[in-house]
C-alpha cells in the first residue's frame, strides 16, 4: 500500500511546490524590498497605503479603465489592419517584396519617436495615445501574420484545389494558432506602450498617474502605477491565452 502511495504523494507534494513557488518568490522579493527601503525607495507599507488611498478615491479604477480603453481601441485597430495586411503579404510574393522593406524600416523606429507628430496631427485627448498604441502593435502583428501565412504547408492548398475549396477559406484557420500567439505578444507590446502614450496630451490613465506622481515626487504612487500595470498586463495575457483553448486551434499547441 505504502509503496504504491508514496510516489503519488511525492508527485502531489511536487505539484504543490510548483504552485507555491511563485508566491514564495514574491514574499522573498517583498522582504528584500522592505530591507532596502530608504529615502529613495518607498517601503511596501507606504506603497500599500498609497494604493488603498488611490483605490478608495476611485482614481485607480478610472485610470485603469481609461488606459484599457485606449489600448483596446489602438490594439483593435492594429489587429483589424495588421492581420489582413499580414495575410496578403504572406500569400502574395509581389505584395511582400514591395512592402517588406518599408515595414522593416518603420518597425525599427520606436513609436515614442512619433509623439510630436501624434500631437500635431491628432491634438490632445485620446486620439494621439491611441495612435501611438496602434503604431506599436500594428507592424509586429502584420509581420507575425505574414510569416504564419507564408509557411502554410503547400499540401493544404492542393487539397483545397482538389475539393473545390477557395483558398481564402483555409487561410485563417491555417494561421490561427500562430495568430493567437502573435496577438498575445503584440497585446503585451501595446499595453507596455500605454505608459509612454499617456505621458502626452492626456490627463488620465495609468501612464498619466505615473507622470503626475513623478511631478509630485510621490515615488510611492509611481510604484502603485507600476504594480497595477503589471497586474493588468498579466490579466490581459491570461484572457488572450484562453483563445488557445478553442478546439479547432488545439493542433497548433499540442504537437
Amino acid at each position: 500500500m505504502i509503496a504504491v502511495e508514496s510516489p503519488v504523494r511525492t508527485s502531489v507534494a511536487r505539484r504543490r511546490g510548483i504552485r507555491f513557488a511563485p508566491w514564495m518568490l514574491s514574499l522573498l522579493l517583498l522582504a528584500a524590498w522592505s530591507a532596502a527601503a530608504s529615502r529613495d525607495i518607498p517601503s511596501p507599507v507606504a506603497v500599500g497605503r498609497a494604493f488603498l488611498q488611490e483605490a478608495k478615491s476611485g482614481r485607480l479604477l478610472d485610470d485603469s479603465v481609461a488606459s484599457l480603453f485606449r489600448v483596446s481601441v489602438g490594439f483593435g485597430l492594429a489587429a483589424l489592419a495588421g492581420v489582413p495586411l499580414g495575410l496578403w503579404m504572406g500569400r502574395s510574393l509581389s505584395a511582400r517584396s514591395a512592402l517588406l522593406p518599408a515595414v522593416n524600416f518603420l518597425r525599427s523606429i520606436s513609436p515614442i519617436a512619433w509623439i510630436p507628430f501624434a500631437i500635431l496631427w491628432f491634438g490632445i485627448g485620446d486620439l494621439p495615445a491611441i495612435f501611438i498604441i496602434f503604431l506599436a502593435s500594428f507592424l509586429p502583428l502584420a509581420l507575425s501574420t505574414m510569416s504564419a501565412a507564408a509557411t502554410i504547408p503547400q499540401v493544404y492548398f492542393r487539397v483545397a484545389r482538389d475539393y473545390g475549396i477557395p483558398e481564402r477559406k483555409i487561410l485563417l484557420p491555417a494561421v490561427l494558432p500562430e495568430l493567437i500567439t502573435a496577438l498575445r505578444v503584440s497585446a503585451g507590446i501595446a499595453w507596455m506602450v500605454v505608459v509612454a502614450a499617456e505621458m502626452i496630451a492626456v490627463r488620465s490613465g495609468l501612464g498619466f498617474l505615473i507622470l503626475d506622481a513623478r511631478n509630485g515626487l510621490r515615488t510611492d504612487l509611481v510604484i502603485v502605477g507600476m504594480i497595477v500595470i503589471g497586474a493588468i498586463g498579466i490579466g490581459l495575457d491570461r484572457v488572450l491565452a484562453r483563445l488557445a483553448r478553442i478546439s479547432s486551434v488545439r493542433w497548433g499547441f499540442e504537437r
Partner: protein
Amino acid sequence: MIATERLTHRYGELDVLQGIDLAIEKNELVVVIGPSGCGKSTFLSLLAGHSEPTGGLVRRGGSGRTIHQAGGLFPWLTVRENIALGGGRVEELVALMGLEGFEDYYPHRLSGGMKQRVELARALAGDASILFLDEPFASLDYQTRVRMRSVLLRALEVRPRTVVLVTHDIDDAVQLADRVVVLSARPAEVRTVLPLEIDRPRDPADPRIIGAIKKLRNLLRLE
C-alpha cells in the same frame, strides 16, 4: 481515363521527366515505381493537374483527388468534418474505414495509420473517379501498411475507380497493381510496364508474385 503524350518536365536546368507515354484504363490500378528521387511525385502531380508540365500533354477523363505523403488532412477540422469535405456518405465511409467512435477527433490526436484512413475516406466520399496516391503508406509500420492495402482494395470493390499509386515499395506494387510502371533514374523514362493479372487478395507465396518481386528488384537494382 488518363493519357500522357511525350510528357516532359524540367525544374530550371534539371530534367526530371523525359518523354513519358502512358495510357491508363478506366478503373485500372496502376502502380508507378522507381528509384528514389527519380521524379515519381512530380509525375503524379502533373497527372493530378497540380502543376503544369514544361512539355507534352496530360489528358484526364474525370476529376481526381490526391492522397498526400505528408498528410493532407486539415488539422482544424474533425475527422467527420474532414470527410464531409469530400461529399456525402460520411457515416458509410466511417464504417468502411473502421473509424467509428473517432468522428469528433481532431487529426493530431490520431495515429499515422488512422490519419491515412481518414484521408482515404475523404478522397472516396463524393464522385471523384480518379485517386492519386503519393507514397500513401510510406510512414506506416509493416502491419499497418498491409492493413491499409486491404482497406484500399475493399473500398475499390465497393466503388471501382481509376487509381494511380506512386511508391518505392515493391510489396505495394505486387500486392496492388494491375500494371506496374517502372521508371528509370532521373531524367525519368518508362523503363518497363509489368502487367500482373493475378486475383486479389494475393498470396505472397504465389510463384507469380515471387517472380514479379524478383523482376522488379532486378530492374530497380540496375539503376
